[in-house]
């Protein structure tokens, strides 16, 4: 088989990675943008989303679609509430000091991870996808009678993977709409631009922070629920999303949502393609190298505003 079908297959896998990564990274970017908090526990909120999805899906039983649909709502909401509670009880008491919040979220990372290990255990457990029809994909071949379609063996995807890409797109458009078209989005942006002036104009900044921290964690959890039928839930699964999200947020420009999405697509696609043709380790090495280059040549990120 020629290279074309392989590339298409790798791109599809990459697109799934990119979709989930975009959701997770936008959550991280939102928290950093509005609150100036580097949330090291972000990957654990992702993991918690996957584990809660397994718990909801197995305790409901019945058709896989019912459990999955319930998990899609319950897991992000629960994770969002846990994060908002962590914000109000921990980060608020630290007065959102940049250094101390890093240490605090590292602590939060281990607490969430170990509680999951003690309750859920060390096993990786799958969640059944709500639908999973295999789709064979065609490729073009130039024969004697001009171009013709054929179906190479092994070239295909599943309806579920396509649905993940679509769902992530819908949610991202929703987040964009929330930030630019609604009052609560306006309040969040005003808080981001000048916290003191926001307070002087009646914005309850502490409540906005709890909301943003919860929303950021819920986005990570949502990404995890989408990926758990492909990847399985495990208590250590938060590491890669955390690392990749940081890479994406730095490459895209700290606090810039469009930059974050573009960088997620770039990193996710290349991660998928390089993993298929070479090894996943090489993909991580190259992504980290890209961060180093961005930090040297364009420290504000691809889409970040240059500080005045």
């Amino acid at each position, binding site marked *: 088989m020629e290279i074309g079908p392989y590339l298409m297959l790798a791109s599809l896998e990459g697109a799934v990675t990119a979709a989930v990564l975009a959701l997770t990274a936008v959550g991280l970017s939102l928290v950093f943008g509005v609150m100036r908090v580097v949330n090291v526990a972000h990957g654990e909120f992702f993991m918690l989303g996957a584990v809660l999805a397994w718990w909801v899906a197995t305790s409901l039983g019945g058709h896989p679609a019912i459990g999955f649909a319930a998990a899609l709502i319950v897991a992000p909401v629960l994770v969002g509430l846990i994060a908002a509670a962590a914000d109000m009880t921990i980060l608020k008491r630290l007065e959102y000091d940049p250094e101390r919040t890093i240490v605090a979220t590292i602590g939060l990372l281990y607490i969430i991870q170990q509680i999951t290990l003690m309750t859920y255990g060390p096993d990786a457990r799958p969640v059944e996808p709500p639908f999973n029809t295999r789709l064979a994909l065609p490729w073009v071949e130039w024969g004697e009678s001009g171009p013709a379609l054929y179906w190479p063996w092994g070239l295909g995807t599943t309806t579920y993977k396509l649905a993940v890409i679509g769902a992530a797109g819908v949610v991202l458009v929703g987040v964009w709409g929330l930030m630019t078209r609604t009052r609560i989005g*306006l*309040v969040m942006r*005003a808080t981001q631009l000048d916290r*003191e*002036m926001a*307070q*002087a*104009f*009646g914005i*309850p900044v502490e409540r906005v922070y709890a909301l943003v921290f919860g929303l950021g964690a819920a986005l990570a959890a949502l990404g995890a629920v989408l990926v758990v039928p492909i990847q399985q839930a495990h208590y250590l699964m938060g590491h890669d999303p955390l690392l990749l999200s940081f890479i994406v947020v730095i490459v895209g420009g700290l606090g810039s949502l469009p930059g974050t999405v573009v960088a997620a697509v770039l990193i996710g696609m290349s991660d998928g393609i390089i993993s298929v043709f070479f090894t996943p380790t090489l993909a991580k090495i190259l992504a980290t190298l890209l961060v180093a280059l961005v930090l040297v040549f364009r420290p504000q990120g691809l889409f970040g505003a240059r500080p005045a």
Partner: protein
Amino acid sequence: MLRLDGMETGYGAVKVLRGLSLTVESGEIHCLLGRNGAGKTTTMKAITGLLPLWAGRIEMDGTDIGTLPAHQRARHGVGYIPQGRRLFTELTVAQNLEIGLMTRGSGREVRERALDLFPRLRERMHQRAQTLSGGEQQMLATARALCIEPKALLLDEPTEGLQPSMIEVIRSAIVRLRDQGVAILLVEQRIDAVLSVADRVTFIEAGHGRETRAAADLSAHHEVIDRYLGV
């Protein structure tokens, strides 16, 4: 009426205000004069709640607002126009005003009245605040504070760095607000500008309110000004 009584506050362990008391009547322009570091801006930050009050009371029409968090003080009608304007730079003119309107749930007619004072802003509604000229930014900062329908307005060096024609626009807007019954606390460096608009002047020195005089009185007694501001 805005009444400050024995106000104390500071930064970290450093006390800046040491028992400042003064009253700004409704329909009065009350000016704070003092050397750099005397505590003028600190007074304003303490009134808005951006600095915590260590001791003393802040009363707005008889209600103690000094114990409330900053965002609730704005809802009691404290409008703040800070030094350097501090607009929400990446938001449009309309969005900056919208945030002012949201503070106390004011209606559209409040925004229209604010814009009537500064018609030039109407042509700039969908422009980002950072693209405005300095004078237009000051107009927007003022209009934004007016959108909360303030009972008391705190202005920190509103004419700093503006050209004379723009200073006149801001000055006449302040006078109109006074005539509408707003209690105005003004910090201003230029003595001539103070004496032409202020009703009363309080001299502040090392965090104490030293003396309150009628502005008309001061023009005749320039030695008082020299005592507190002279080098």
